[in-house]
């Protein structure tokens, strides 16, 4: 069975970037391995957790984990958005990074066995969901219907094109893709994710939904899911905040009475509603 999780708390462990892939505009995926073989062996995550990644000379940032807890290459997918992520994008294969973590609660897995699972992602919101999707597909027989609804602005903005290709060919995995405007050669749906969610025949009873994407998309999708009858406590999402320590001490990620780094980043919509701050 799974080893106990012993996170790296204070001093980052050095890891080597072994491969870099351009995913979409401004987003790259960095595959890494730990230099210390013991850590490489012992590092275990739950899907939905995050790590603190050090770019030497630039700083540290919090980033969600897109790989499955089992049999998946370790990687992070990062959009170039600030000073530290810009420095990360400058790296080449062979460069070192520092890793602390994994931190946070993670998506439920054992608890949702036997249920139908709906994933709804918008844009790079697919990054944190990928971990759970791959994990659930690895244990496909333990779950009911598994559905992915994924939308992006254009076909170029769809993340993880290799995984998508694989998923489209996976049996018993219902995938639906949409882009905002028609494009020549596009055979998927057209329109916003929430509109697609509204049109689809989705399971409702004994079902959990994982939603991740920009706030506008998030709110409109939640509305549709609730209209279909999915309960607020069965809708999960993962939040992001400015984070410095990852271990519940610096307090930068406080929302209401919770700290995203230790109480989150995964919350049910029911919890999110009571936090009293915008997401």
């Amino acid at each position, binding site marked *: 069975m799974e080893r106990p999780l012993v996170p790296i708390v204070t001093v980052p462990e050095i890891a080597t970037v072994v491969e870099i892939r351009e995913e979409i505009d401004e987003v790259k995926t960095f595959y890494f391995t730990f230099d210390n073989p013991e850590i490489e062996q012992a590092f275990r995550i739950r899907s939905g957790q995050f790590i603190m990644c050090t770019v030497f000379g630039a700083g540290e940032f919090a980033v969600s984990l897109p790989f499955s807890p089992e049999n998946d290459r370790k990687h992070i997918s990062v959009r170039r958005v600030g000073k530290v992520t810009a420095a990360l994008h400058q790296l080449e294969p062979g460069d070192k990074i520092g890793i602390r973590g994994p931190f946070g609660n993670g998506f439920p897995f054992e608890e949702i066995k036997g249920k139908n699972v709906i994933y709804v992602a918008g844009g790079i919101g697919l990054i944190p969901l990928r971990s759970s999707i791959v994990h659930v597909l690895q244990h496909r027989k333990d779950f009911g219907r598994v559905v992915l609804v994924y939308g992006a602005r254009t076909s170029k903005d769809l993340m993880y094109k290799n995984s998508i290709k694989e998923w489209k060919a996976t049996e018993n995995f219902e995938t639906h893709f949409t882009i905002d405007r028609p494009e020549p050669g596009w055979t998927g749906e057209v329109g916003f994710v929430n509109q697609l969610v509204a049109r689809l025949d989705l399971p409702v009873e004994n079902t959990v939904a994982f939603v991740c994407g920009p706030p506008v998309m998030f709110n409109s999708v939640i509305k549709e899911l609730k209209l279909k009858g999915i309960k607020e406590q069965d809708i999960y999402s993962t939040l992001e905040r400015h984070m410095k320590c990852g271990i519940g001490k610096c*307090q930068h990620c406080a929302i209401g009475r919770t700290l995203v780094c230790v109480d989150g980043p995964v919350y049910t919509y029911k919890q999110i509603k009571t936090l009293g701050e915008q997401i």
Partner: protein
Amino acid sequence: MYWLEKNQLEQLVKKLAKDYRIFGPRRDEVSGEVIFDWLENLSDLDLQASIPYNPPKFILFPHFEEILKYRYDHRSKKAVIERINLLEPKALVGIRACDLTGLLCLDRFFLGQEFVDEVYLEHRKKLFIISNTCVRPFPQCFCVCTDSGPGAKEGYDLDLTFTGEGYIVNCGSKKGQKLAEELGLKEAGPEASELRQKIIDDSISSFDRFALENKAWISRATNRLTTGFIKPEVWEYIGNQCFECGACSFVCPTCSCFNIEDVNSKTGDTYRVRTWDSCSFEGYTKMAGDHNPRKPVEDRRNKRFFCKLSYSQSKKYLRPGCVGCGRCARVCPGDIGLPNVVTYIRREITEG
């Protein structure tokens, strides 16, 4: 319990100084202010001075602290990370009950919860604490409302109470007991305990009336803050007076938010520095890409007082986050120190 003669104090401090770096209240010659500081000169220690304007939290949680050092060579792709550990044993001599309570809050926060803060733990492990019963409250002080003074109840190695002629000494730990015995202090009977209580009672009666009246209102405010029943207009009123200077956080014995930056030095080493931070700053919650979920100042003020008084936060400290030292009221360029915020909340309750 023991008696410590006035002239034995020097002996005690000198003995401690052999093993510990001594921190205590001293009067600053230039400003005339009492500050809690490293005592380069042990005779500067002034236990009769009024409450220091800064809490001693910086001794365990420094304003700037290098927690890691690393060097990365981009050409050879070699990274070396070192942990910085130059911590020496430190003694806090003459810490007030309010500040000691604040320190215990920090202990529970940094050493409790899901993770232990290893940096704080290093500081805390090698600490000797001598508390001092407060007999000279500020006009802003209200520790009587927050159950954190004027006499210390727990957390000290030795506790001193000045009687006018000497000190009543309480031992709070084996470490403290050992020191008292080594100094050959004279044992004191039950009369010392009674005398200490009388001194504390006298001190309480010298508090400003507002502090004594405020007592019940703090728990009402706690209730309101926890349940979130305070009108947005009250927060706006409070937010309008906030200069966003962060002074309240910096003088607060329990405020412990920090920022972490990697600072490159000319030698090629990079230092990971942890610095004090304040939730009153706009950049505090700003994420890369400039999205800021907590932009309006009243949102940020709301957060601070939630932290000081709400029941949810009290669960982390095992008591309210406010220790009643009154420093926030003293430094605030607006008028939103904690006692005033309680007053505004109280006004809302009474006037509806």
